[in-house]
Every structure is written in structure tokens, then in C-alpha cells.
């Protein structure tokens, strides 16, 4: 069984400040983790993923995520938030070696609101 949790429904941050969107996971075996962003009435856009290797993963639009095995976390971060980053963010994951075309399990999403 696998699950992904996003403990915060909404995160508010001022433009220019660092942001963190939290994600924890429960996966049997080694995890394969993603962050996606969804703008209103749009599809999910891939931001970054973790397979193995460096715990700090860099992605699109200046976002990065830190994988922490001991805390089973994969928090999304950005050093300086922009108003245009305001959107719905989903953490997703599955176990490695589960075969081809295996489903992703999504968290419930965190709405990021960046204000001037």
C-alpha cells in the first residue's frame, strides 16, 4: 500500500520570502516521488521528481525539493516566492519496481497563495 499526505490545505507567503510546501509519504520499498502544479482550469504540470541519488532535487521555475528518508518527507521549496507561483500543488508517488504503467498516488493538494 502507498499513501501521500500533504498536511496543509493552504500556505500563505509574501512575495520574495522563501516557501515550503510539505509532503510525507508511505511507500512499500523505495519511493519514487513527484511534485506537480495545477493552475485554475488547467492540467497538472510536472515540476520535479526524485528517483535516487542526491536528496536535493532541482526542478522547473526555481523550485526544488528535499528528500528525507528518515522523516519520510519530500518537501517542496523555493528561495524566493513570486505572485505567479500561486496555484495548487500536488505531491505524488509510488514505489519503485512496481512495474510499467503503475499508478501514481496523489496527496490532497496544497493551495499556495503568494501576496505582494
Amino acid at each position, binding site marked *: 500500500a502507498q499513501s501521500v499526505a500533504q498536511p496543509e490545505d493552504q500556505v500563505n507567503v509574501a512575495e520574495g520570502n522563501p516557501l515550503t510546501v510539505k509532503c510525507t509519504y508511505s511507500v512499500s520499498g523505495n519511493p519514487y516521488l513527484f511534485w506537480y502544479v495545477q493552475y485554475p482550469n488547467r*492540467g497538472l*504540470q510536472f515540476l520535479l521528481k526524485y528517483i535516487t541519488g542526491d536528496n536535493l532535487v532541482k526542478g522547473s521555475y526555481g523550485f526544488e525539493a528535499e528528500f528525507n528518508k528518515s522523516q519520510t518527507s519530500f518537501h517542496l521549496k523555493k528561495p524566493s516566492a513570486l505572485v505567479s507561483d500561486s496555484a495548487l500543488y500536488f505531491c505524488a508517488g509510488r514505489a*519503485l519496481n*512496481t512495474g*510499467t*504503467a503503475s*499508478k501514481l498516488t*496523489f496527496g490532497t493538494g496544497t493551495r499556495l497563495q503568494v501576496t505582494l
Partner: protein
Amino acid sequence: AAGVIQSPRHLIKEKRETATLKCYPIPRHDTVYWYQQGPGQDPQFLISFYEKMQSDKGSIPDRFSAQQFSDYHSELNMSSLELGDSALYFCASSSPGTSGIRGTDTQYFGPGTRLTVL
């Protein structure tokens, strides 16, 4: 860069009608996934296909069926529509991961089809 194409983008149906949603994957992608996202919900996996064969199955109702064709596009057929089927339906596509580890493909999502059942 080419993206996943879904049609139609919006669909309005009456209860008990049928609907067909289409998905055209990114060129050279051989894997297609279908997800359902209800209002204010996270995407829920329905079904996936790899090389035209069903690969994984989630919480897809028996009223729904899907297939992947020889050109890799996929169709989701929905019959006896219910009010609760109103949702955003996403298709995602991927190609085999290049890391050498099974199951490391990245799913790229289409814009979705918004289905409203009245």
C-alpha cells in the same frame, strides 16, 4: 514541445447518457494513464495502458471502459452516466524511464476534459 491532447475539453451530458473521451499522447510515448479529479479533490487513478495492453487498474466503475489503439491514442468510454461522474478527467502519457530502474517514467498530463452530467 508537443503535449498531451485531450478532446473534447468540455462535455455536457444528461443522466444515463454515454460519453467518449479521447487522449492523444505525446509523440513516441507508449503509455497512457487516466485519472478522475472531482471538485476540490486530488486526482484518482482509473486505468493505464502500456503498448496497447491494460497495465494497471484503479477505482474505475464497471460502467466505464477504455482501450489504447494501434496509434497509441486512448479512449475512455463512459455509459449510464450518473451525476457523480461530473469531474475533470485527465489523461497522462509517458515513455519508459531511462534510469534503468523499472517504473521510473514521468507522467505528463493533458489539460483535461471537464464532464458535467445534468
